[in-house]
């Protein structure tokens, strides 16, 4: 297969199947196109090939997790959910730290309690 990346131009029709990426071939020839129920059933493909396919594709969040492909969830650079988790965690850490500082009487300068602090907020 001609991998163009960004160096070569389009070539005439004539891919070289021997060099094509196996994952790319598999995702095309396993269950794409017009599927016809043949005499020899290979619905088994869905089950038996799962082990292989799990290693090749991020098939869904659940299966990916089962297969240990969990970067989608845990890599903050790519997962908004993970980013949210990170935010929540950091928020919590910040709150704890603030609370600790406040109980020690080391109030940051110019700080006024702005968010639902039960005993504050009546500055006038």
């Amino acid at each position, binding site marked *: 297969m001609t991998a163009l*990346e960004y160096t070569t131009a389009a070539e005439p029709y004539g891919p070289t199947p021997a060099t094509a990426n196996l*994952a790319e071939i598999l995702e095309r*020839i396993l269950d*794409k196109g017009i599927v016809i129920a043949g*005499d020899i059933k290979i619905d088994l493909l869905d089950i038996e090939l799962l082990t292989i396919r799990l290693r090749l594709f991020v098939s869904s969040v659940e299966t*990916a997790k089962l297969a240990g492909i969990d970067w989608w969830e845990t*890599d903050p650079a790519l997962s908004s959910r993970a980013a949210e988790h990170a935010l929540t965690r950091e928020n919590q850490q910040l709150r704890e730290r603030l609370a600790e500082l406040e109980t020690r009487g080391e109030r*940051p300068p110019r700080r006024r309690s702005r968010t639902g602090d039960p005993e504050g907020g009546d500055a006038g």
Partner: protein
Amino acid sequence: MTAAQQLPALAAPATGTTVTCVFAILGGDGPAAPAAGPEGGHEGGGALRLLPLAARLRALVQDVPAADFTEDALRRRLADPARLEVCARAHHAVVTAAAAGGPVVPLPLATLFTDDRRAVAALDARRQQFLAALELVTGRAEWALKVSAGRPEASAAPAAGHPSPVPAGGQGAAYLARVRGQERDRTARQEAALRAARHAHDTAAAFAVSSVRRRPHGTEVTGRDRHQVLNAAYLVDDARAAELASAVRALAGTYRDLGLHVELSGPWVPYSFTGQTAGEGE
């Protein structure tokens, strides 16, 4: 379609019996002989040949040893990565060679019938779908576009090298600022990668008559330090393939600075687009 399987065929041990393996459906105007030559196809099988169907269609078929293509044998073979690869490449090679002679409708790996008669009956029943698919793919090919992101550590190291000046607020405020900075970096990288994936897809889709987005490949394929953010295929008029290629080249140049890698491959036989003509989608 299961009638043949219920026959007591097992009583007679296979003495050189074969089953019919169908690779693809060809239109009526292509070459009279299989383009792959008689030697292609699955191991142990006979010569590739064309089986006439209704509506001037032809099926590209091969007689393969029945014993090697039972459910059990297939299950064992296809669950073994090395043998799966042999099978997959053999199938792909036959289909690709056939496509050089004219439009084809590829069938999935190991579409098998007990004999020609049953194959013809089953295939003829789908002829409207084949005709529609052939019309759709004539003069067009499938192109694959992938965008992947490097690991964040590699592309954007956290700004730990230079100690940030301690703001007037003291340590607490510094901590706050640092945490916010890291979060901003992360969010920015994530948004940039996803935005780039969307943009790349839109760019390519503008040249295509149809497109599909697939599941990204896992790191088993891409390597641990790359995360695929786009895995898509496009059905493109042959006349526009060069335009697509140069548009993708331009994209790749733009994205390099973001640590994103862009890869276009093709032309592929339009595997991903022949199943859509019956209105039942992917």
